[in-house]
Protein backbone atom coordinates (compact mmCIF):
# COMPACT_ATOMS: atom_id res chain seq x y z
CA UNK A 1 0.00 0.00 0.00
CA UNK A 2 2.79 2.38 0.88
CA UNK A 3 4.50 2.02 -2.48
CA UNK A 4 1.32 2.60 -4.48
CA UNK A 5 0.53 5.56 -2.26
CA UNK A 6 3.98 7.11 -2.72
CA UNK A 7 3.35 7.03 -6.46
CA UNK A 8 0.89 9.86 -5.85
CA UNK A 9 3.77 12.31 -5.51
CA UNK A 10 4.85 11.61 -9.09
CA UNK A 11 2.63 14.11 -10.98
CA UNK A 12 3.74 17.04 -8.83
CA UNK A 13 7.33 15.75 -8.80
CA UNK A 14 7.28 15.65 -12.62
CA UNK A 15 5.95 19.23 -12.74
CA UNK A 16 8.64 20.38 -10.34
CA UNK A 17 11.42 18.68 -12.30
CA UNK A 18 10.17 20.14 -15.60
CA UNK A 19 9.28 23.59 -14.38
CA UNK A 20 11.30 24.27 -11.25
CA UNK A 21 14.51 22.23 -11.28
CA UNK A 22 15.10 22.49 -15.05
CA UNK A 23 14.72 26.30 -15.16
CA UNK A 24 17.13 26.64 -12.24
CA UNK A 25 19.68 24.44 -14.06
CA UNK A 26 19.27 26.56 -17.20
CA UNK A 27 19.73 29.66 -15.04
CA UNK A 28 23.01 28.34 -13.62
CA UNK A 29 24.19 27.30 -17.09
CA UNK A 30 23.39 30.72 -18.56
CA UNK A 31 25.22 32.47 -15.70
CA UNK A 32 28.39 30.63 -16.77
CA UNK A 33 28.33 31.96 -20.34
CA UNK A 34 29.40 35.25 -21.88
CA UNK A 35 29.62 36.73 -25.39
CA UNK A 36 33.20 35.63 -25.83
CA UNK A 37 33.54 32.23 -24.17
CA UNK A 38 31.19 29.28 -23.78
CA UNK A 39 32.04 28.43 -20.18
CA UNK A 40 33.38 31.23 -18.04
CA UNK A 41 33.15 32.63 -14.55
CA UNK A 42 33.38 36.16 -15.94
CA UNK A 43 29.93 37.19 -14.67
CA UNK A 44 30.80 36.12 -11.15
CA UNK A 45 34.18 37.85 -11.27
CA UNK A 46 32.42 40.99 -12.51
CA UNK A 47 29.98 40.87 -9.60
CA UNK A 48 32.54 40.42 -6.86
CA UNK A 49 35.05 42.90 -8.24
CA UNK A 50 32.45 45.65 -8.45
CA UNK A 51 31.93 47.41 -5.13
CA UNK A 52 28.50 48.62 -6.23
CA UNK A 53 27.25 45.08 -6.80
CA UNK A 54 28.48 43.37 -3.69
CA UNK A 55 27.45 46.25 -1.48
CA UNK A 56 23.90 45.67 -2.79
CA UNK A 57 24.21 42.03 -1.70
CA UNK A 58 25.29 42.99 1.82
CA UNK A 59 22.63 45.70 2.07
CA UNK A 60 19.97 43.17 1.12
CA UNK A 61 21.15 40.51 3.56
CA UNK A 62 21.36 43.05 6.40
CA UNK A 63 18.00 44.56 5.49
CA UNK A 64 16.47 41.10 5.96
CA UNK A 65 18.25 40.69 9.30
CA UNK A 66 17.04 44.05 10.66
CA UNK A 67 13.44 43.54 9.50
CA UNK A 68 13.45 40.00 10.98
CA UNK A 69 14.63 41.31 14.36
CA UNK A 70 11.86 43.96 14.40
CA UNK A 71 9.34 41.21 13.55
CA UNK A 72 10.65 39.09 16.41
CA UNK A 73 10.53 41.95 18.93
CA UNK A 74 6.84 42.61 18.23
CA UNK A 75 5.81 39.18 16.97
CA UNK A 76 6.82 37.18 20.05
CA UNK A 77 4.61 39.24 22.41
CA UNK A 78 1.63 38.86 20.04
CA UNK A 79 2.12 35.10 19.92
CA UNK A 80 2.55 34.96 23.73
CA UNK A 81 -0.61 37.02 24.34
CA UNK A 82 -2.50 34.85 21.82
CA UNK A 83 -1.36 31.64 23.50
CA UNK A 84 -2.51 32.93 26.90
CA UNK A 85 -5.87 34.27 25.64
CA UNK A 86 -9.20 32.46 25.85
CA UNK A 87 -10.19 30.38 22.80
CA UNK A 88 -12.56 33.07 21.57
CA UNK A 89 -9.99 35.88 21.79
CA UNK A 90 -7.38 33.60 20.27
CA UNK A 91 -9.47 33.25 17.09
CA UNK A 92 -10.00 37.01 16.91
CA UNK A 93 -6.30 37.74 17.41
CA UNK A 94 -5.16 35.14 14.86
CA UNK A 95 -7.71 36.57 12.42
CA UNK A 96 -6.23 40.06 12.92
CA UNK A 97 -2.72 38.65 12.44
CA UNK A 98 -3.47 36.83 9.19
CA UNK A 99 -5.63 39.62 7.75
CA UNK A 100 -2.59 41.58 6.58
CA UNK A 101 -0.75 38.64 5.05
CA UNK A 102 -3.75 37.77 2.91
CA UNK A 103 -4.33 41.34 1.81
CA UNK A 104 -2.35 42.03 -1.34
CA UNK A 105 1.25 43.14 -0.67
CA UNK A 106 0.87 45.90 -3.25
CA UNK A 107 -2.17 47.23 -1.42
CA UNK A 108 -0.47 47.12 1.98
CA UNK A 109 2.63 48.84 0.65
CA UNK A 110 0.44 51.45 -1.04
CA UNK A 111 -1.21 52.14 2.33
CA UNK A 112 2.21 52.92 3.75
CA UNK A 113 2.87 55.47 1.02
CA UNK A 114 -0.29 57.28 2.17
CA UNK A 115 0.95 57.06 5.78
CA UNK A 116 4.63 57.92 5.30
CA UNK A 117 4.42 60.50 2.51
CA UNK A 118 5.26 64.20 2.98
CA UNK A 119 1.57 64.93 3.60
CA UNK A 120 0.98 61.57 5.26
CA UNK A 121 -0.56 61.05 8.68
CA UNK A 122 2.75 60.60 10.46
CA UNK A 123 4.02 63.93 9.19
CA UNK A 124 0.71 65.67 9.93
CA UNK A 125 0.84 64.41 13.52
CA UNK A 126 4.51 65.31 13.93
CA UNK A 127 3.93 68.82 12.50
CA UNK A 128 0.76 69.29 14.52
CA UNK A 129 2.50 68.42 17.77
CA UNK A 130 5.38 70.68 16.88
CA UNK A 131 7.85 67.79 16.96
CA UNK A 132 9.30 68.94 13.68
CA UNK A 133 9.15 72.11 11.61
CA UNK A 134 9.31 70.56 8.19
CA UNK A 135 7.99 67.22 6.90
CA UNK A 136 10.22 64.29 7.79
CA UNK A 137 11.59 62.19 4.98
CA UNK A 138 10.28 58.70 5.72
CA UNK A 139 9.69 57.31 2.25
CA UNK A 140 12.79 56.32 0.31
CA UNK A 141 14.83 55.69 3.48
CA UNK A 142 16.08 52.40 4.89
CA UNK A 143 14.28 52.76 8.25
CA UNK A 144 11.08 53.27 6.26
CA UNK A 145 11.70 50.08 4.26
CA UNK A 146 12.48 48.10 7.44
CA UNK A 147 9.33 49.34 9.16
CA UNK A 148 7.07 48.45 6.23
CA UNK A 149 8.78 45.07 5.69
CA UNK A 150 8.25 44.28 9.38
CA UNK A 151 4.54 45.06 9.05
CA UNK A 152 4.10 43.18 5.82
CA UNK A 153 5.90 40.00 6.98
CA UNK A 154 5.04 39.96 10.71
CA UNK A 155 2.39 37.18 10.42
CA UNK A 156 5.08 34.79 9.15
CA UNK A 157 6.85 35.29 12.49
CA UNK A 158 3.79 35.12 14.75
CA UNK A 159 2.17 31.93 13.42
CA UNK A 160 5.05 29.42 13.93
CA UNK A 161 5.78 30.82 17.42
CA UNK A 162 2.10 30.58 18.33
CA UNK A 163 2.00 26.95 17.15
CA UNK A 164 4.86 26.02 19.49
CA UNK A 165 3.57 28.09 22.42
CA UNK A 166 0.09 26.53 22.34
CA UNK A 167 1.65 23.04 22.40
CA UNK A 168 3.83 23.80 25.44
CA UNK A 169 2.85 21.95 28.60
CA UNK A 170 1.47 24.66 30.96
CA UNK A 171 2.69 22.53 33.89
CA UNK A 172 6.27 23.51 33.03
CA UNK A 173 5.59 27.20 33.66
CA UNK A 174 3.66 26.29 36.84
CA UNK A 175 6.56 24.15 38.02
CA UNK A 176 8.89 27.07 37.45
CA UNK A 177 6.62 29.33 39.51
CA UNK A 178 6.34 26.81 42.32
CA UNK A 179 10.12 26.57 42.42
CA UNK A 180 10.17 30.30 43.06
CA UNK A 181 10.99 31.74 39.65
CA UNK A 182 9.22 34.98 38.78
CA UNK A 183 7.33 35.55 35.54
CA UNK A 184 10.27 37.16 33.75
CA UNK A 185 12.65 34.44 34.84
CA UNK A 186 10.16 31.76 33.75
CA UNK A 187 9.82 33.45 30.36
CA UNK A 188 13.58 33.74 29.95
CA UNK A 189 14.60 30.32 31.30
CA UNK A 190 11.61 28.08 30.45
CA UNK A 191 9.16 29.42 27.87
CA UNK A 192 11.62 31.13 25.53
CA UNK A 193 14.10 28.23 25.23
CA UNK A 194 11.24 25.76 24.70
CA UNK A 195 9.70 27.93 22.00
CA UNK A 196 13.00 28.41 20.13
CA UNK A 197 12.06 25.95 17.34
CA UNK A 198 9.05 28.17 16.57
CA UNK A 199 11.18 31.30 16.77
CA UNK A 200 13.70 29.82 14.35
CA UNK A 201 10.99 28.66 11.94
CA UNK A 202 9.47 32.15 12.09
CA UNK A 203 12.86 33.79 11.50
CA UNK A 204 13.56 31.57 8.47
CA UNK A 205 10.19 32.37 6.85
CA UNK A 206 10.38 36.09 7.67
CA UNK A 207 13.97 36.43 6.55
CA UNK A 208 13.52 34.75 3.19
CA UNK A 209 10.35 36.77 2.57
CA UNK A 210 11.99 40.11 3.52
CA UNK A 211 15.08 39.82 1.32
CA UNK A 212 13.01 38.97 -1.74
CA UNK A 213 10.16 41.46 -1.14
CA UNK A 214 10.41 43.23 -4.49
CA UNK A 215 7.23 45.33 -4.23
CA UNK A 216 7.95 46.76 -0.78
CA UNK A 217 11.61 47.35 -1.52
CA UNK A 218 10.95 49.21 -4.77
CA UNK A 219 7.89 51.24 -3.74
CA UNK A 220 9.14 52.31 -0.30
CA UNK A 221 12.86 52.31 -1.13
CA UNK A 222 12.42 54.18 -4.39
CA UNK A 223 14.96 54.18 -7.18
CA UNK A 224 17.96 55.14 -5.06
CA UNK A 225 17.84 52.32 -2.50
CA UNK A 226 18.69 49.29 -4.62
CA UNK A 227 18.42 45.75 -3.27
CA UNK A 228 19.14 42.43 -4.97
CA UNK A 229 15.66 41.78 -6.46
CA UNK A 230 15.61 45.19 -8.18
CA UNK A 231 19.20 44.64 -9.26
CA UNK A 232 18.23 41.36 -10.96
CA UNK A 233 15.17 42.96 -12.56
CA UNK A 234 17.15 45.95 -13.88
CA UNK A 235 19.91 43.78 -15.34
CA UNK A 236 17.43 41.31 -16.87
CA UNK A 237 14.73 43.63 -18.24
CA UNK A 238 16.35 47.09 -18.22
CA UNK A 239 19.88 46.28 -19.40
CA UNK A 240 18.82 43.04 -21.13
CA UNK A 241 22.04 41.41 -19.86
CA UNK A 242 20.66 37.94 -19.17
CA UNK A 243 23.90 36.08 -18.37
CA UNK A 244 24.90 38.69 -15.78
CA UNK A 245 21.36 38.82 -14.33
CA UNK A 246 21.48 35.01 -14.11
CA UNK A 247 24.76 35.17 -12.21
CA UNK A 248 23.29 37.72 -9.77
CA UNK A 249 20.25 35.46 -9.30
CA UNK A 250 22.43 32.45 -8.52
CA UNK A 251 24.54 34.44 -6.05
CA UNK A 252 21.39 35.78 -4.39
CA UNK A 253 19.83 32.33 -4.10
CA UNK A 254 22.98 30.81 -2.63
CA UNK A 255 23.30 33.69 -0.14
CA UNK A 256 19.68 33.27 1.01
CA UNK A 257 20.09 29.48 1.23
CA UNK A 258 23.25 29.94 3.31
CA UNK A 259 21.43 32.29 5.69
CA UNK A 260 18.50 29.87 5.99
CA UNK A 261 20.86 26.92 6.54
CA UNK A 262 22.61 28.85 9.31
CA UNK A 263 19.29 29.57 11.03
CA UNK A 264 18.20 25.93 10.61
CA UNK A 265 21.47 24.78 12.19
CA UNK A 266 20.85 27.02 15.21
CA UNK A 267 17.33 25.60 15.26
CA UNK A 268 18.56 21.98 15.42
CA UNK A 269 20.91 22.89 18.27
CA UNK A 270 18.04 24.55 20.15
CA UNK A 271 15.79 21.52 19.65
CA UNK A 272 18.24 19.20 21.38
CA UNK A 273 18.53 21.82 24.12
CA UNK A 274 14.75 21.98 24.46
CA UNK A 275 14.34 18.22 24.77
CA UNK A 276 17.26 17.81 27.16
Amino acid at each position, binding site marked *: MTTSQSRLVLPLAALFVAFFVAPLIVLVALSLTADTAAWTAANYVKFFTDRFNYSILWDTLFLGLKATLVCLLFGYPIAWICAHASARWQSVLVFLVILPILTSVVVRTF*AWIVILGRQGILNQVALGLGLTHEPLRLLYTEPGVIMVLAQVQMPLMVLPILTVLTKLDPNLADASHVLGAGEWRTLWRVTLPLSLPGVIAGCILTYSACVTAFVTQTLIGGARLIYMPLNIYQQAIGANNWPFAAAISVIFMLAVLAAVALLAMIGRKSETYGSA
Partner: protein
Amino acid sequence: MAAPKHSLDWEAISLRLVFGALAAVAILFLVGPTLIMLLTSFTASQSLKFPPDGLSLRWYVALLDADQMQAAAWNSLVVAFWTTVFSVVLGTAAALGIARNRSALARVCDVLFMSPLLLPALAFGFAALIYIHKLGFAPSIPFLVLGHIVVCVPFVLRTTIATLSQLDPALLDASYSLGGGRLMTFRRVTLPLIAPGLGAGAFLAFMASFDNVPVSLFLADERTEVLPIHLWQQIETNLDVRTAAVSGLIVIFTLILMLLAERMAGLTRQMR
Protein backbone atom coordinates in the same frame (compact mmCIF):
# COMPACT_ATOMS: atom_id res chain seq x y z
CA MET B 1 0.29 26.16 44.29
CA ALA B 2 2.88 28.13 46.21
CA ALA B 3 1.71 31.19 48.04
CA PRO B 4 2.46 34.10 45.72
CA LYS B 5 5.32 36.17 46.94
CA HIS B 6 5.07 39.91 46.79
CA SER B 7 7.71 40.29 44.10
CA LEU B 8 6.02 37.60 42.00
CA ASP B 9 2.86 39.66 41.67
CA TRP B 10 4.78 42.68 40.55
CA GLU B 11 6.64 40.60 37.99
CA ALA B 12 3.44 39.10 36.62
CA ILE B 13 1.97 42.57 36.22
CA SER B 14 5.06 44.06 34.59
CA LEU B 15 5.39 41.13 32.15
CA ARG B 16 1.75 41.42 31.10
CA LEU B 17 2.09 45.18 30.81
CA VAL B 18 5.20 45.07 28.62
CA PHE B 19 3.95 42.22 26.42
CA GLY B 20 0.46 43.68 26.28
CA ALA B 21 1.83 47.06 25.20
CA LEU B 22 4.12 45.53 22.56
CA ALA B 23 1.31 43.32 21.24
CA ALA B 24 -1.16 46.23 21.20
CA VAL B 25 1.28 48.38 19.22
CA ALA B 26 1.92 45.46 16.87
CA ILE B 27 -1.77 44.74 16.30
CA LEU B 28 -2.43 48.42 15.59
CA PHE B 29 0.59 48.37 13.29
CA LEU B 30 -0.76 45.26 11.51
CA VAL B 31 -4.37 46.36 11.03
CA GLY B 32 -4.04 50.15 10.84
CA PRO B 33 -2.60 50.52 7.32
CA THR B 34 -5.32 48.34 5.77
CA LEU B 35 -8.04 50.40 7.48
CA ILE B 36 -6.41 53.68 6.45
CA MET B 37 -6.22 52.42 2.86
CA LEU B 38 -9.88 51.50 2.93
CA LEU B 39 -10.98 54.90 4.32
CA THR B 40 -8.73 56.85 1.95
CA SER B 41 -10.28 55.09 -1.06
CA PHE B 42 -13.62 56.76 -0.27
CA THR B 43 -12.16 60.25 -0.60
CA ALA B 44 -14.08 62.92 -2.50
CA SER B 45 -10.95 64.83 -3.52
CA GLN B 46 -8.19 64.35 -6.10
CA SER B 47 -5.46 63.67 -3.58
CA LEU B 48 -4.61 60.69 -1.40
CA LYS B 49 -4.84 62.41 1.95
CA PHE B 50 -5.78 60.89 5.27
CA PRO B 51 -8.19 61.74 6.78
CA PRO B 52 -9.94 62.26 3.41
CA ASP B 53 -11.64 65.57 2.56
CA GLY B 54 -15.20 64.35 2.42
CA LEU B 55 -16.45 60.91 1.47
CA SER B 56 -17.77 59.72 -1.86
CA LEU B 57 -17.86 56.71 -4.13
CA ARG B 58 -16.63 58.67 -7.17
CA TRP B 59 -13.36 56.74 -7.56
CA TYR B 60 -15.18 53.44 -7.34
CA VAL B 61 -17.56 54.67 -10.05
CA ALA B 62 -14.52 55.76 -12.09
CA LEU B 63 -13.36 52.13 -12.09
CA LEU B 64 -16.24 51.25 -14.40
CA ASP B 65 -14.31 53.01 -17.21
CA ALA B 66 -10.86 51.74 -16.28
CA ASP B 67 -10.50 49.21 -19.10
CA GLN B 68 -6.85 48.34 -18.52
CA MET B 69 -7.42 47.81 -14.83
CA GLN B 70 -10.43 45.59 -15.54
CA ALA B 71 -8.51 43.51 -18.07
CA ALA B 72 -5.65 43.07 -15.60
CA ALA B 73 -8.09 42.06 -12.84
CA TRP B 74 -9.74 39.52 -15.15
CA ASN B 75 -6.34 38.02 -16.09
CA SER B 76 -5.46 37.76 -12.40
CA LEU B 77 -8.71 35.97 -11.59
CA VAL B 78 -8.27 33.50 -14.47
CA VAL B 79 -4.67 32.73 -13.50
CA ALA B 80 -5.52 32.43 -9.79
CA PHE B 81 -8.46 30.13 -10.59
CA TRP B 82 -6.45 27.65 -12.70
CA THR B 83 -3.49 27.84 -10.33
CA THR B 84 -5.78 26.90 -7.44
CA VAL B 85 -7.42 24.02 -9.33
CA PHE B 86 -4.08 22.46 -10.33
CA SER B 87 -2.46 23.17 -6.96
CA VAL B 88 -5.32 21.44 -5.13
CA VAL B 89 -5.37 18.35 -7.36
CA LEU B 90 -1.58 17.88 -7.60
CA GLY B 91 -1.00 19.05 -4.02
CA THR B 92 -3.57 16.69 -2.47
CA ALA B 93 -2.19 13.71 -4.38
CA ALA B 94 1.36 14.59 -3.33
CA ALA B 95 0.26 15.16 0.28
CA LEU B 96 -1.30 11.67 0.39
CA GLY B 97 2.01 10.26 -0.84
CA ILE B 98 4.15 12.23 1.59
CA ALA B 99 2.19 12.20 4.88
CA ARG B 100 3.21 9.29 7.15
CA ASN B 101 5.68 8.13 4.53
CA ARG B 102 9.18 7.78 5.92
CA SER B 103 10.89 6.73 2.66
CA ALA B 104 13.80 8.79 1.34
CA LEU B 105 11.86 9.67 -1.82
CA ALA B 106 9.04 11.20 0.23
CA ARG B 107 11.51 13.27 2.32
CA VAL B 108 13.26 14.56 -0.80
CA CYS B 109 9.93 15.46 -2.41
CA ASP B 110 8.81 17.22 0.76
CA VAL B 111 11.92 19.43 0.78
CA LEU B 112 11.71 20.01 -2.99
CA PHE B 113 8.03 21.00 -2.91
CA MET B 114 8.53 23.39 0.01
CA SER B 115 11.68 25.05 -1.35
CA PRO B 116 9.83 27.68 -3.46
CA LEU B 117 8.75 29.26 -0.14
CA LEU B 118 12.39 29.83 0.84
CA LEU B 119 14.15 30.53 -2.45
CA PRO B 120 13.85 34.09 -3.79
CA ALA B 121 10.78 33.84 -6.01
CA LEU B 122 12.11 36.59 -8.26
CA ALA B 123 15.13 34.46 -9.19
CA PHE B 124 12.78 31.58 -10.03
CA GLY B 125 10.62 33.91 -12.14
CA PHE B 126 13.64 34.99 -14.14
CA ALA B 127 14.85 31.38 -14.47
CA ALA B 128 11.43 30.39 -15.81
CA LEU B 129 11.56 33.21 -18.37
CA ILE B 130 14.99 32.07 -19.63
CA TYR B 131 13.78 28.47 -19.74
CA ILE B 132 10.66 29.26 -21.77
CA HIS B 133 12.73 31.41 -24.08
CA LYS B 134 15.31 28.63 -24.61
CA LEU B 135 12.49 26.20 -25.41
CA GLY B 136 11.36 28.65 -28.10
CA PHE B 137 8.12 29.83 -26.51
CA ALA B 138 6.90 33.30 -25.55
CA PRO B 139 5.34 34.04 -22.15
CA SER B 140 1.61 33.24 -22.12
CA ILE B 141 -1.16 32.52 -19.64
CA PRO B 142 -0.49 28.73 -19.45
CA PHE B 143 3.18 29.35 -18.59
CA LEU B 144 2.13 31.99 -16.06
CA VAL B 145 -0.17 29.41 -14.44
CA LEU B 146 2.68 26.83 -14.37
CA GLY B 147 4.96 29.33 -12.67
CA HIS B 148 2.26 30.22 -10.14
CA ILE B 149 1.57 26.55 -9.34
CA VAL B 150 5.21 26.09 -8.34
CA VAL B 151 5.08 28.96 -5.83
CA CYS B 152 1.49 28.34 -4.62
CA VAL B 153 1.35 24.55 -4.22
CA PRO B 154 3.40 24.65 -0.96
CA PHE B 155 0.42 26.30 0.78
CA VAL B 156 -1.92 23.44 -0.18
CA LEU B 157 0.71 20.85 0.78
CA ARG B 158 1.41 22.38 4.18
CA THR B 159 -2.19 22.53 5.40
CA THR B 160 -3.16 19.19 3.82
CA ILE B 161 -0.18 17.28 5.22
CA ALA B 162 -0.92 18.80 8.65
CA THR B 163 -4.55 17.59 8.60
CA LEU B 164 -3.55 14.19 7.16
CA SER B 165 -1.08 13.57 9.97
CA GLN B 166 -3.89 14.14 12.50
CA LEU B 167 -6.10 11.63 10.70
CA ASP B 168 -6.61 8.44 12.71
CA PRO B 169 -5.33 5.54 10.52
CA ALA B 170 -7.77 3.22 12.31
CA LEU B 171 -10.57 4.92 10.38
CA LEU B 172 -8.98 3.93 7.08
CA ASP B 173 -8.38 0.36 8.29
CA ALA B 174 -12.03 0.19 9.35
CA SER B 175 -13.11 1.28 5.90
CA TYR B 176 -10.85 -1.28 4.19
CA SER B 177 -11.96 -4.11 6.46
CA LEU B 178 -15.59 -3.26 5.74
CA GLY B 179 -14.82 -3.80 2.06
CA GLY B 180 -14.34 -0.20 0.98
CA GLY B 181 -11.97 0.05 -1.96
CA ARG B 182 -9.09 2.52 -2.16
CA LEU B 183 -11.10 5.06 -4.15
CA MET B 184 -14.22 4.69 -2.05
CA THR B 185 -12.21 5.08 1.17
CA PHE B 186 -10.62 8.23 -0.19
CA ARG B 187 -13.94 9.71 -1.27
CA ARG B 188 -16.03 8.73 1.73
CA VAL B 189 -13.51 8.81 4.59
CA THR B 190 -10.27 10.65 3.85
CA LEU B 191 -11.61 13.49 1.74
CA PRO B 192 -14.38 14.63 4.15
CA LEU B 193 -11.91 14.53 7.05
CA ILE B 194 -9.17 16.53 5.34
CA ALA B 195 -11.59 18.93 3.61
CA PRO B 196 -10.97 21.81 6.08
CA GLY B 197 -7.18 21.66 5.61
CA LEU B 198 -7.65 21.35 1.87
CA GLY B 199 -10.07 24.29 1.81
CA ALA B 200 -7.74 26.50 3.80
CA GLY B 201 -4.82 25.53 1.53
CA ALA B 202 -6.87 26.24 -1.60
CA PHE B 203 -7.82 29.65 -0.22
CA LEU B 204 -4.19 30.50 0.61
CA ALA B 205 -3.01 29.32 -2.83
CA PHE B 206 -5.67 31.46 -4.53
CA MET B 207 -4.67 34.56 -2.57
CA ALA B 208 -0.95 33.90 -3.15
CA SER B 209 -1.49 33.61 -6.90
CA PHE B 210 -3.77 36.64 -7.07
CA ASP B 211 -1.13 38.67 -5.23
CA ASN B 212 1.99 37.26 -6.91
CA VAL B 213 4.46 39.77 -8.30
CA PRO B 214 7.93 38.12 -8.50
CA VAL B 215 6.89 35.41 -10.98
CA SER B 216 4.37 37.48 -12.95
CA LEU B 217 6.97 40.21 -13.37
CA PHE B 218 8.84 37.95 -15.81
CA LEU B 219 6.12 35.65 -17.15
CA ALA B 220 3.43 38.25 -17.94
CA ASP B 221 3.63 40.75 -20.81
CA GLU B 222 1.40 43.65 -21.93
CA ARG B 223 -1.31 41.32 -23.22
CA THR B 224 -1.34 39.16 -20.13
CA GLU B 225 -0.79 41.89 -17.56
CA VAL B 226 -2.03 40.92 -14.10
CA LEU B 227 -3.52 43.19 -11.44
CA PRO B 228 -0.64 43.39 -8.90
CA ILE B 229 1.84 44.31 -11.64
CA HIS B 230 -0.54 46.88 -13.09
CA LEU B 231 -1.06 48.43 -9.63
CA TRP B 232 2.68 48.37 -8.93
CA GLN B 233 3.36 50.28 -12.15
CA GLN B 234 0.54 52.74 -11.42
CA ILE B 235 1.91 53.48 -7.96
CA GLU B 236 5.48 53.82 -9.28
CA THR B 237 4.53 56.28 -12.01
CA ASN B 238 1.46 58.31 -11.06
CA LEU B 239 -0.49 58.14 -7.83
CA ASP B 240 -3.99 57.82 -9.23
CA VAL B 241 -6.85 57.77 -6.72
CA ARG B 242 -8.46 55.01 -8.79
CA THR B 243 -5.59 52.82 -7.63
CA ALA B 244 -6.81 53.45 -4.09
CA ALA B 245 -10.33 52.41 -5.11
CA VAL B 246 -9.05 49.12 -6.56
CA SER B 247 -7.05 48.60 -3.38
CA GLY B 248 -10.21 49.25 -1.37
CA LEU B 249 -12.07 46.64 -3.43
CA ILE B 250 -9.27 44.12 -2.90
CA VAL B 251 -9.38 44.72 0.86
CA ILE B 252 -13.16 44.26 0.95
CA PHE B 253 -13.06 41.06 -1.13
CA THR B 254 -10.20 39.67 0.95
CA LEU B 255 -12.18 40.30 4.14
CA ILE B 256 -15.30 38.61 2.74
CA LEU B 257 -13.30 35.61 1.48
CA MET B 258 -11.49 35.34 4.81
CA LEU B 259 -14.74 35.36 6.77
CA LEU B 260 -16.10 32.67 4.43
CA ALA B 261 -12.92 30.60 4.80
CA GLU B 262 -13.11 31.00 8.57
CA ARG B 263 -16.73 29.86 8.58
CA MET B 264 -16.28 26.92 6.22
CA ALA B 265 -12.75 25.69 6.88
CA GLY B 266 -11.85 27.20 10.25
CA LEU B 267 -9.05 29.19 8.62
CA THR B 268 -7.54 30.49 11.88
CA ARG B 269 -7.23 26.92 13.21
CA GLN B 270 -5.69 25.64 9.95
CA MET B 271 -3.00 28.29 9.90
CA ARG B 272 -1.58 27.39 13.28
